[in-house]
């Protein structure tokens, strides 16, 4: 079964995405910030991670750097309120692990299809 980990500091949003993923038939786990995510990742060993880019604590960059030290090697979908330019997209994808990104507020269908595409 495909494992999806939902990382978001907003409880409502985290739980909503978690619910969406469960209903789509994925095994899920939640983390409320970068530290929490890095702690839980090796235990859960997810295939896909939805990662909010604006959380208290570690920055997205720091999280991605520390992820390289872990055993797990998940594909990451960034959730952002920021638009990315072509150059930024290229840089993000070059950082490894990052598979795609979704701009908030997202459409239900867009998130489902993006996770599906990333997991396959």
């Amino acid at each position, binding site marked *: 079964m495909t494992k999806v980990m939902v990382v978001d500091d*907003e409880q*409502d*949003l985290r739980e*909503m*995405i978690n*619910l*969406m993923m469960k*209903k789509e038939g994925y095994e899920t786990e939640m983390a409320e910030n970068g530290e929490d995510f890095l702690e839980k990742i090796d235990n859960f060993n997810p295939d896909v991670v939805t990662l909010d*880019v*604006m959380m208290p604590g570690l*920055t*997205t*960059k720091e999280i991605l750097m520390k992820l390289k030290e872990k055993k797990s090697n998940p594909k990451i979908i960034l959730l*952002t*309120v*920021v*638009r*990315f*330019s*072509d*150059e*930024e997209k290229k*840089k*993000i994808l070059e950082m490894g692990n990052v598979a795609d990104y979704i701009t*908030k*507020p*997202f*459409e*239900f*269908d867009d*998130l489902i299809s993006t996770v599906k595409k990333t997991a396959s």
Partner: protein
Amino acid sequence: MIIVSIISGTLILGISLAEQTSSMEENIIQHHIVVANVASQSIEAGYFAQIWPFETLKEISECESVLFWWVVKPDGEILRADDTAMWGKQINDESLGTSKTVVKDSVSPKTGENIKLIVHPLDIGEEGEQWTFYLGISLESVVDARNKMIVDGVGFFIVILIVVIFISFYFTKTVTRPITTLTEGAKAISQGDLEYNIKIETKDEIGKLADAFNKMSGKLKESRSKLENYSKNLEKQVEERTRELNEKITESKQSEAATLSILEDMHIIHEGLIKSQKRIKLQNIKLKKLDRIKSDFLNVTSHELRTPMSAIKGYVQMVMKQTLGNITEEQKKALNIVLRNTDRLDHLIQDILDISRLESGTMKFIPEKTDIKTMVKETVETMQSSADLKHITINAEIEDEMPELTIDQERIKQVIINIISNAIKFSPDGSIINVQAKKDKNNILFGVQDFGRGIPEDKQKKIFETFYQVDSGMDRKFGGAGLGLAISRGIVLAHGGQIWADSIIGKGSTFYFTLPLRSVVDLEEKFKEIDIFGLKPGGI
């Protein structure tokens, strides 16, 4: 010069005369020694032949310089003489009986004049007897010749002297005197007598020199008078300046006190300025902090507003998709309204955030190379569904040769969407909207034409102001917060372009905006440093 000439002339003449005289005397003596010799030999020959050489002696007697001749016996008795009166007379002479020819000075026994006496031995008479021939000669011819020479020489000398004097006189007149005159003139001028006029009127070099000299002294005189004038003026000016200076000094002394007080004031002002500067620096830091706070506030607001929106939208969509169980059609309809209003609210939030970012200068632009034709076409296509609701046809007229622009494509699309949305909003059902894009000088010109109600001329500029609506009452019918055109204006201005509207009431409006071809490079430069995750201050 004359004296020198005379002395040298005399000396030359004297020396030459003495030489000439002695040489002439010598010649005469030598000549008469020969005569004495001839006479002696004739006498000797005649004595032995018992024939007295009368003829020879007669000839000798007739010689010009011969005064007398004597044939003297060894005892001093004159045997024969030219003058018979002398015969038998006794002479006493030391040269009597000489064996050599002797020449000596003597005195004429007749006239008492100085004569030369040539004493020549005669080999006649008995063995051991020495007869003597005496020949007295006069040097009168020498004296005559000398006198003649002296007369001639003196004459010549006088002639030379006259010539010399004449030449001297001439030179004195033509050369020496003018030079002396010039010298005197120069002396006079050098001693300051500039009135001195050199009077030489010859036409030679000296005349010219004198003329030049006179001109020079004239010039000097002129210069001197000018100098004198200058110096007089200078004195006056110096006096005047001194007076002025004194006045100034008095004035400056008075103003010095004023200056000092001004300086004190300036010092106080300077200190004040330094304090102000410090305050400004502090305020600047505060302002920068404020800017950061504002930017952070907008980022946080954006996140905080959109996160709940995401939750609302997500759950509503989940319910609508019946992921969480079946729902009725009525429930579905209600949720659709919730969703539509959520979207409207979301757009309003986005617009308010955009306006805030544009106004605070914290809006982030993402420049990308954009094909204008494709961009306009795509945008028109996305608007077609909205236009279809009012049966409006959108005609797009885009020039084929369009350059690529480096712009924030999403933001420019937003501008076109805003303008077309407005056009649709205010167009009557079934009308046409013309969209055009073309190259215009250094810009790309975009135009959106509608055939709606139009905008009054006095309001054509105001519509680009924040929250402005042409008719508040009427616009309630059309909806919108009046932010779209203000945001569009901000985006276009940020790209270095212009935005405006042309309209005729009742006939419609055309909205134009331009994007410069040139500012492309600046935009690229401006957005070179890209903050990937929008975590830098003002990054979002």
